[in-house]
């Protein structure tokens, strides 16, 4: 893990713990996802966005470089631990999705915590694993309407769940006051208090 200095032990520990809370959620969510699969109509893609929520929430809380990547990787590997199923693919997807979020946050220089930042990170994460899915699941050989449906659902889900819902959770967390303990000093989590 090549990360810049600046992350303290507290930052890393909080990121990983937040990610593991979501790992528990992911594991429960895996059931919903699988239950929606048999139709083949990609209804499961509508809940796909839940899988990037850890990266976005962790970034909103800590607001430092590298946090989104660690969070998404930790959540993915945490899921494999909770489910008792080591899954290389899952961890690889976690890294790629985390990187996609990280790039979006780097572009806004880890400053903004606006809804738009969260939504664009969610969409970026949704798009990031499509190339891999293309090779793994032979998506090129799907009928076109089915493929469009799948990509559309996935992007929508990334924007709504990983973007909007993550931001809702962040605002609620801020209200509890717990964020005054954490993150970058200039982040101003306690602004307005």
């Amino acid at each position, binding site marked *: 893990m090549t990360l810049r200095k600046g992350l303290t032990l507290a930052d890393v520990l909080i990121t990983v713990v*937040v990610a593991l809370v979501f*790992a528990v959620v992911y594991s429960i969510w895996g059931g919903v996802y699988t239950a929606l699969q048999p139709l*083949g109509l990609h209804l499961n893609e509508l809940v796909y966005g839940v899988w990037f929520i850890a990266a976005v929430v962790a970034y909103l809380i800590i607001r430092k470089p590298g946090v989104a990547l660690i969070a998404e990787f930790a959540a993915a590997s945490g899921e494999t631990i*909770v489910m008792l199923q080591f899954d*290389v693919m899952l961890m690889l997807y976690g890294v790629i999705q985390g990187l996609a979020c990280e790039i979006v946050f780097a572009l806004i220089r880890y400053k903004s915590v606006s809804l738009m930042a969260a939504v664009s990170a969610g969409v970026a994460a949704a798009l990031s694993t499509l190339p891999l899915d293309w090779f793994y699941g032979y998506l090129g050989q*799907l*009928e076109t309407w089915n493929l469009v449906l799948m990509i559309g659902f996935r992007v929508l889900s990334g924007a709504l769940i990983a973007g909007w*819902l993550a931001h809702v959770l962040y605002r609620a967390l801020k209200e509890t006051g717990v964020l005054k303990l954490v993150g970058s000093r200039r982040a101003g989590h306690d602004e307005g208090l």
Partner: protein
Amino acid sequence: MLDMIKNYTTFIDRTNPVTKLSLGVMIFITVVLMHNPNQLFYLALMLMLTLLLFSGVRIRYLVLLIGVMLAFGLFSSAYMIFYGEGRTTLFSFGIIHVTEESLMRGIHIMMRGLALSFFGALIIFTTRITDVFYSLMQQLRIKPKYAYSFMAAIRMVPIIAREYISLRQARKVRKPLIHKKYVSGITGFKTTIVTLLSQSIRRAWRLSVAMESKGFDDGPRTYYHQTSFSISDFWLVIFTVLLFIFSMIFGTIIEPFATTDAR
């Protein structure tokens, strides 16, 4: 917990976690690049046999697990079986259009998932999770900051789970008194997650303060648990390479499927 369902240990238990992780990545790449369903069939079959023989877990648990994996694998390939492109129609109902080609591709995707799941289960059954982080620190020189954060956080998972259960029980008791939206739906989800997150953040912060005040840092350190590479690593690498070679050979001699290219 794993000791309760394990009967015996094999050389895979003595293999370094770093070797297993690298082999996992190697199998993933191989499976993605493999387009011949015959070869993939043998690879998946042999990985299943490896899981049955070398994980040391009691057979009835393994049979149950493999059954669940088969069902999940079938679900995850449903989209391709029902809506994949193809010329020879086998079955058509409404928008569902099963063709010979799409069925083959669906089975291929399912076998990919199965091969990865079998190897993943083998790793989980033969590895202690703390050893993964010790060997990441000692063999791959990952900073202790990250490794110990992971280990500490994994210890907190049971606490998080317990909190979630008591939260749900409290909700159940208060259900007649409070509005329905705080129990289910998005508000219910939000309040649950926010409670769990805020408690976990406080706990993690307290722990990190304690660790830092006791002088925990990234400096040079010694380990009580030593991990290293051994002859078992060599055997596992040879074993996996042999699996690849055998599946390549068998896949071209005895072909269970009519086609040699799933694309």
